[in-house]
């Protein structure tokens, strides 16, 4: 009797469960009413990379608030929600789910970095999330992914420009490159790009070393680089670990020429490291805080208005730029605002001018790739900031 009753209950449970296999579809017209638009984004707020996410996120919100105070876009006020992912792919997936299912946002403006964007590929397609990720890897733009738009010069291009610079402009004998990279996807992409490019110029890559994103010490990396005799170090890692690296190198009296990509090219690097940063050259594509272009003037005005003193100025500027692109897209999409009309509107950008924040932006239905424009900056220890070293460059055709 006892067992029979239980199995009967079980069967009932299972049967009933399968009866309900019809789902409720997500409501369409997500996040848009006559007088409001709800947007969301996923960006790191905590953990070792938080320093990068916070200024950008603040800027993205500040710009939309600024637009709202000017009356909104097409009569709609914009509300922006920020979810934290701690720079971790699984948390980013969960955060996207929250924004879409709980908050029902129109789109998720960015899903974080390269790892996070890869992890969210299915979600981006499924929920038609028009986004400008903080991930400039070639794979997102070639082949075309309909809902992903580019922020700035691809990592591959940045490293090509760096190696071009090393070959053509750097006056040094017997060049030997050491690479310091993170195991995250962007680090590996950087490493591959450097190796490929250096092989074309016959510059030896003598060491490849991993520096974790949360590293507080880089002794063994520095010693290994010294041992390998690297006189040029190319880093493929974000700003915080680069600070650890430069400070450790200083302790071991090791002074190679150091290069880095856009996520490590910020005035803060020079402020934090002081003289240890004297050999640093970084690539980037956003304007400098002290520029006199209309876009940067606006950035400074917004920062003052909302009482922000961003530590990483390049990220704050970039954040304003991202929101500016979205605001323009929403404006061009007009009254009928859905993920698809927003995407189509962004695809009408032809040399859109952000006023010196980014290079001119062009998106077409065939390509969402960025402009092939990279600038190199160099540390100025006296002035505690980065100063432009070159004009706009693009990778040479080899």
């Amino acid at each position, binding site marked *: 009797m006892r067992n029979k009753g239980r199995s009967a209950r079980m069967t009932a449970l299972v049967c009933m469960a399968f009866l309900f296999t019809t789902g409720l579809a997500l409501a369409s017209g997500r996040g848009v009413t006559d007088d409001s638009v709800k947007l969301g984004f996923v960006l790191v707020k*905590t*953990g*070792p*990379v*938080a*320093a990068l996410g*916070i200024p950008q996120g603040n800027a993205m919100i500040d710009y939309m608030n600024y637009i709202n105070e000017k009356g909104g876009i097409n009569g709609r006020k914009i509300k922006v929600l920020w979810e934290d992912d701690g720079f971790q792919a699984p948390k980013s997936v969960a955060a996207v789910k929250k924004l879409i299912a709980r908050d029902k946002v129109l789109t998720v403006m960015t899903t974080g970095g390269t790892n996070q964007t890869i992890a969210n590929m299915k979600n981006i397609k499924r929920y038609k999330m028009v986004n400008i990720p903080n991930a400039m890897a070639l794979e997102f733009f070639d082949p075309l992914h309909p809902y992903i738009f580019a922020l700035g010069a691809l990592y591959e291009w940045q490293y090509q420009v760096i190696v071009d610079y090393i070959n053509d402009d750097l006056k040094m004998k017997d060049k030997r490159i050491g690479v310091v*990279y993170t*195991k995250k996807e962007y680090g590996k992409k950087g490493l591959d790009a450097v190796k490929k490019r250096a092989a074309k110029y016959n510059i030896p890559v003598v*060491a*490849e*070393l*991993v520096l*974790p994103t*949360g590293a*507080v*010490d880089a*002794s*063994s*990396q520095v*010693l*290994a680089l010294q*041992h390998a005799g690297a006189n040029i170090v190319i880093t493929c890692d974000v*700003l*915080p670990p680069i*600070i*650890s690296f430069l*400070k*450790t190198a*200083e*302790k*071991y*009296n090791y002074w190679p020429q150091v290069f880095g990509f856009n996520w490590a090219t910020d005035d803060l690097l020079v402020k*934090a*490291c*002081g*003289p240890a940063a004297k050999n640093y050259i970084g690539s980037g594509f956003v304007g400098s805080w002290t520029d006199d272009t209309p876009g940067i003037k606006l950035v400074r005005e917004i920062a003052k208005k909302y009482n922000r003193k961003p*530590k990483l100025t390049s990220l704050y500027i970039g954040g304003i730029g991202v929101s500016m692109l979205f605001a323009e897209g929403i404006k061009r999409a007009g009254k009928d605002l859905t993920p698809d009309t927003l995407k189509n509107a962004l695809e009408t950008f032809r040399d859109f001018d952000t006023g010196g924040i980014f290079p001119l932006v062009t998106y077409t239905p065939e390509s969402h790739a960025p402009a092939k424009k990279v600038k190199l900056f160099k540390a100025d220890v006296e002035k505690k900031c980065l100063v432009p070293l070159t004009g706009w460059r693009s990778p040479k055709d080899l």
Partner: protein
Amino acid sequence: MYFLELVISGIAVGSLYALIAMGFVLIYKATGVLNFAQGEAIMVAAFICYYLVTRFGVPFWLAVPLTLIASALLGAVTERLVIRPLLGEPVFSVVMVTIGLSIFLRSMAGIIFGHHNYVFPSPFPVKPLQMAGIVLSHNHLWSMIISFSLMLIFFFFFKFARLGLGMRATANDQDTATLMGINIKSVYALTWGISFVVAGLAGVGLANVMVLNVGLAFVAISAFPAVILGGLESIPGAIIGGLTIGILENLAGGYLDQIVGGGVKDVTPFAVLFLVLMIKPYGLFGTKEVERV
């Protein structure tokens, strides 16, 4: 030469590991608890010192004792609020409570201090020492000196000082210790205080050698293997464990990283720990517990 350099830099980091490990051992010796929040004590102390020096302009030689006093207070308060209510509870509960504490302290530190990388204003000259081609920074040298002298002090403290003996007696058997006239409560509070002071010293040392951010707390997790390797209740064990792990880590980073593809440095201590436990379940110098029913 390269090998020697790796070993020396390993000893420099290892001596700090040994210092951290000593913090663990102190608490374990007196209370039979492994304190997972040791890393957070280190990080908080480093931040206190940093703020004293940069924000309040306190000179470094004064900031260090102030930091140590603050650490001692934090230790005593922790003991009173978190550990004492659990006197007599199973080890599992006490360990979990320290894990909870570590999570709490770390995220509070994240909220209060933020997540930036701070560079400690080092009081020592930047230009490193060079001896026979081997480069060693002043920071490393000083942290080594401090670690080793502290280790000596504690070694003798537990061997001869009345209080040290009292701590050992408490760890051995709480009830008997009470009967012998040892005030267990004050022994506990004192132990946590002293252990946090050691953590504070380690914190100031680490912040000088490394970059200061909230992630500094994770260095203590790397010191776990050092403690276990040496056995939980042995101070010489902690020293040997700390140095071994420091050297192994650096050698793995220097040689294996290039071959295996990176990141081996961080996992090596744990692989070593795992292997040691498989072979010697109580660590290299730990005493086997004899159980009676």
